[in-house]
């Protein structure tokens, strides 16, 4: 199908909306009625047709508007995109990975023509047609990582691998769940995860690191992570927290279904061929609770997950103050019926709401 791109905003008047198509393919992150940290990695080798897992780098109806929002963030704060000097080769690796994947997966939207190192990249949705010399930085308007990630939804952390650890040495981070690339750049895997509660004690990061260090070229992995965001604000950065924090206080029982969003990150992990770096795309999907509960299984389950979530996690994820109001809202969509296992909506087999 051809994607109809939305003209929408993720700030100020917040005109962001999900179509029926986007709601049905939303990456709901809970495979059962409760949640605790886990490594939960699986191979990223496609998925059901039309799902966000199908392509290597999912492109959806929000593409053009998300790229416009990224450009606004970068104009306001160029430190959101940084690359330590030894990471340029990894930037070219990433540019190649995204250009090759998108041109193969979406031939009607993207074209890549290669003649030796002379490359031509056509991005139809964004109206870009650039010819450049692969591995020659002077032939692009930005460094290779910045150039391609201004054209790709989601944040990108590019991790150097050495000393049996991963180092956050480059990234493009404008749609983050409250972490700062500028502060974390140069840190290793354990250091940048330091503020996360409970997970260190559970050994989650040691197991995750072991898994990630062993990711091979051509065998990417993926997992889902989640949090909650008031308003469809992509840039929930710590840098701007003093500006957006107040929005958390604007929820009322009347507007909650429209304003409170579940925020899901599709995290994927790719080994890069020349640099041996690991790229960690973190793709953010937002859905208003009033849209989410149109899938009966998801309404039931989200209520149970949020209700039973340990207090530390609700605090860390930043919605402890609004949890009672969110639960009042979600309780209307939980009739106590059992739910089917797995994350899929199962609209044809799960019963409609019984109240």
């Amino acid at each position: 199908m051809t994607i109809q791109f939305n003209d929408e905003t993720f700030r100020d008047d917040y005109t962001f909306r999900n179509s029926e198509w986007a709601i049905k393919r939303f990456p709901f992150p809970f495979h059962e009625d409760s949640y605790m940290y886990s490594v939960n990695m699986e191979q990223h080798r496609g998925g059901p047709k039309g799902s966000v897992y199908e392509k290597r780098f999912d492109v959806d109806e929000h593409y053009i508007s998300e790229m416009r929002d990224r450009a606004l963030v970068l104009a306001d704060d160029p430190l959101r995109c940084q690359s330590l000097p030894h990471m340029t080769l990894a930037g070219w690796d990433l540019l190649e990975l995204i250009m090759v994947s998108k041109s193969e997966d979406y031939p009607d939207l993207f074209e890549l023509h290669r003649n030796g190192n002379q490359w031509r990249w056509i991005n139809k949705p964004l109206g870009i047609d650039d010819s450049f010399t692969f591995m020659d930085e002077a032939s692009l308007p930005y460094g290779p990582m910045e150039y391609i990630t201004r054209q790709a939804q989601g944040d990108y952390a590019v991790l150097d691998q050495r000393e049996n650890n991963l180092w956050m040495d480059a990234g493009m981070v404008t749609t983050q769940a409250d972490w700062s690339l500028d502060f974390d750049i140069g840190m290793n895997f354990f250091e940048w995860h330091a503020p996360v509660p409970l997970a260190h004690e559970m050994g989650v990061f040691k197991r995750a690191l072991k898994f990630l260090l062993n990711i091979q070229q051509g065998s990417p992995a993926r997992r889902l992570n989640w949090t909650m965001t008031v308003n469809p604000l992509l840039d929930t950065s710590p840098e701007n927290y003093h500006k957006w924090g107040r929005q958390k206080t604007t929820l009322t029982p009347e507007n909650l279904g429209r304003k409170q969003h579940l925020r899901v990150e599709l995290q994927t992990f790719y080994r890069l061929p020349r640099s041996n770096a690991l790229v960690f795309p973190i793709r953010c999907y937002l859905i208003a609770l009033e849209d989410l509960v149109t899938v009966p299984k998801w309404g039931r389950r989200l209520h149970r997950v949020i209700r039973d979530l340990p207090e530390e996690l609700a605090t860390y994820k930043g919605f402890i103050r609004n949890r009672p109001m969110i639960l009042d809202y979600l309780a209307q969509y939980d009739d106590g019926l059992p739910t089917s296992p797995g994350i899929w909506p199962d609209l044809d087999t799960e019963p409609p709401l019984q109240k």
Partner: protein
Amino acid sequence: MSKFDFPPSIASRPVYGTLKPRKGTQHLMIADGAGAEALLDLVASAPEIMAQAHVIFISRGSDTHSEKLRAAGPAILHVGPSYPATVQRIRRVLQDTVMGAQIYLAGTEGLIGQAMNEALQAGIPLAAIQTEHRGSVARRVQCVHCKGITEGVMTDPFVCSHCGLNLFVRDHYSRRLAAFQGVCIDAEDPGEVPDPVELYK
């Protein structure tokens, strides 16, 4: 009492030890304030290393410490008034270090963190750098909003010395910046700022 046992903390927080003499072709010692006492303890156990020692001491006005260090007989002693006044010299001296040089850092977290950063950037292996905390437990904190660094932070929350926001100190430390992260505490409820509490109390 200038020694302080930091409570168990997060994975990104530096851990400090006790300086021990090591065999080396050069001994570069950088200290501030009460950090001088750590160097003097080190030298007391191995007086011979002073013949190859280059000591850079940030006195913060303490003449007593400067005199004791001079009396210990280092090959070179430089006394500077503050870290910013001394950092160019530290960089220059680090350029001249040879393979097998030993680095000793002692004093406040701010001094240790910043000098550690310079040493690593100069290519000194981490294994050749020892640290010992002495003196003030004040922190260096970077405001995540304006990026300004406030030195000598003794309370939580505190006011950013650059932009004036009320910040709490998040338990997150950057070795590159040698600073903790400060985040606005009243973003959700402007003006609702809890009374400052002294760190580690």
